[in-house]
């Protein structure tokens, strides 16, 4: 991982909601793998000091400025508002490539990519790499409504078979990605699933894959303060080890993720899965109530630090 300042090559829009920024970033562009991300400094102002994490959406390894990397985002708060105002020739300070990306299949496989909303961002880079390695790529892209689908035109280009779902029925099948998942898996003879999007979606995808014993890799989004492994804000409870060594470990999404084996993530922070001395401290559902993940609740730990 390095700190790199890159020049913005272009800023484009994807539909009404999404922005794409392409940056000249040779050191990061050469090394980055699908599923990895960059921690972006959103201005030099003093009010918002933390970097924001963004998946690498595309890497362009050909062309005069290559390699360039592209990030896509929607405006949510001050950081993304700053990025939305960036134009060509301005510079962008990035820390990356960060995290562990998707593992590509060892042998030729039918791969299904499942993305919800802006969460689909890293799947385009993944699709490029999978196709370059000779794998078949199918795609399920979903969003609340048609305007929130990320780049459906490229999905059509990249996928052998694709399905689009919107919750309001404004495009494709009415419903969620998980409503069509089993059908698509059967139709495509899917052998491995890659998913990225909101955590409830990932949990549902992991459940479908679990029932069919299909390998599934998920890219999670946790709040990150550092993005390089030292603050421990971004932990996810993940089952590690086997047999006697089996335990629920709190892994850092920024360095040990953001891609995890979907079958091993403890989505509900189930206290029962914890070692006995911990389960006393972690009343079932306590973390859920806060909309977060359990697996951690040292009630005598200080609220800070």
């Amino acid at each position, binding site marked *: *991982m390095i*700190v790199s300042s890159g020049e913005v090559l272009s800023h484009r829009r994807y539909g009404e909601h999404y922005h794409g920024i392409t940056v000249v970033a040779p050191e990061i562009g050469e090394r980055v793998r699908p599923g990895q991300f960059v921690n972006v400094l959103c201005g030099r102002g003093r009010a918002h000091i933390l970097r924001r994490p963004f998946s690498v959406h595309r890497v362009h390894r050909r062309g005069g400025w290559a390699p360039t990397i592209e990030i896509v985002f929607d405006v949510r708060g001050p950081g993304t508002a700053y990025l939305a105002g960036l134009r060509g020739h301005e510079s962008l300070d990035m820390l990356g490539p960060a995290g562990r990306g998707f593992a590509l299949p060892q042998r030729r496989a039918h791969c299904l990519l499942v993305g919800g909303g802006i969460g689909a961002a890293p799947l385009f880079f993944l699709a490029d790499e999978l196709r370059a390695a000779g794998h078949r790529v199918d795609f399920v892209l979903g969003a609340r409504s048609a305007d929130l689908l990320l780049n459906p035109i490229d999905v059509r280009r990249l996928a052998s078979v694709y399905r689009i779902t919107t919750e309001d029925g404004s495009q494709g099948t009415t419903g969620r990605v998980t409503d069509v998942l089993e059908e698509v898996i059967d139709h495509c003879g899917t052998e491995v699933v890659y998913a990225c999007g909101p955590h409830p979606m990932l949990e549902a995808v992991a459940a479908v894959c679990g029932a069919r014993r299909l390998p599934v890799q998920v890219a999670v989004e946790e709040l990150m303060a*550092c993005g*390089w492994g*030292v603050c421990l804000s971004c932990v996810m409870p993940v089952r590690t080890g086997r047999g006697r060594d089996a335990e629920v470990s709190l892994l850092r999404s920024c360095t040990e993720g953001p891609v995890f084996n979907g079958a091993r993530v403890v989505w509900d922070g189930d206290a029962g899965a914890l070692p006995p001395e*911990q389960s006393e401290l972690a009343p079932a559902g306590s973390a859920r109530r806060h909309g977060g993940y359990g697996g951690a609740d*040292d009630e005598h730990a200080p*609220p*800070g630090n």
Partner: protein
Amino acid sequence: MSTRPRATDGIDLSTTLDGLTLRTPVLAASGTFGAGREAAQFVDLHRIGGIIVKSMTLRPWRGRPTPRMYETPSGMLNAIGIQNKGVDHFIAEDLPWLLRKKATVVASIAGNTVQEFIKIADKLRTGGRGLAAVEINISCPNLEDRDNMFSHSPTATAEVVSGVKRALPKLPVFAKLSPNVTSLTDIAGAALEAGADGLSLINTVFGMAIDVEARRPALAATTGGLSGPAIRPIAVRAVHEVHRAFPHAPIIGQGGITDAHGAIEMLLAGASAVAVGTANFFNPRATIEIAAGIEDYMRRHGVGSVADLVGALKEG
């Protein structure tokens, strides 16, 4: 930009805090630099004044549930809850690695009872060869006193400090104080009287933020510790106040330092060294860059040694 203390132009960046001599006056603060492994991608660890590792407890702690952090104006709240792998892991894995990298290592210790602090100190006495110092993180709930923080009581502070000091008579011991108290000088006095060789000022400031859409606390733990530039004036004031009350006590100033300006403020207020925390998150090279900035300042002001800056505030 020069990033290395150069003897040739007569500027000496080293600083001495009683028994502890540091290459530069800029350390990495506990909980913001892990145990150096990740940071080694960005900086040469031996060039940093010192690394105060993440607080360690007697046994591993899993910490608090997520969300554990929330950005606030010019700062952030955290409620990590000292997730760490325990003192045995530090002794077996982290310390030898750091020493191989020639880093100056300060162990930060935390616990819920006086006995826990002492047991960690005992383990460090036998297994902690090569340590430069110990920092006691007393911003922890005291199970034997209705979960009140040790750092909020002069008696509890003194008990922890004297217990740790007895177990580690040869190592410089710094008590890291919390700003969330009525009289910081009372606590500082208690720590020094109990044998602390120096003080670290300050730990995070209690805070809270609310997600108004969801009408929930932004942190799973409800409250958390505020850090970053937002707390710097509080930290500078704390260092100044304690330095005036105890001019001979070495102080590691911390809280909101992001640049040389903030670090020099701390030195002038009376700190002999500073620790950089939250700034590492967005700038992993902050410790090195700030030391270079201090050197530039010293050159501009014709100051040859860090000691000449410590407490050199003009008042009245």
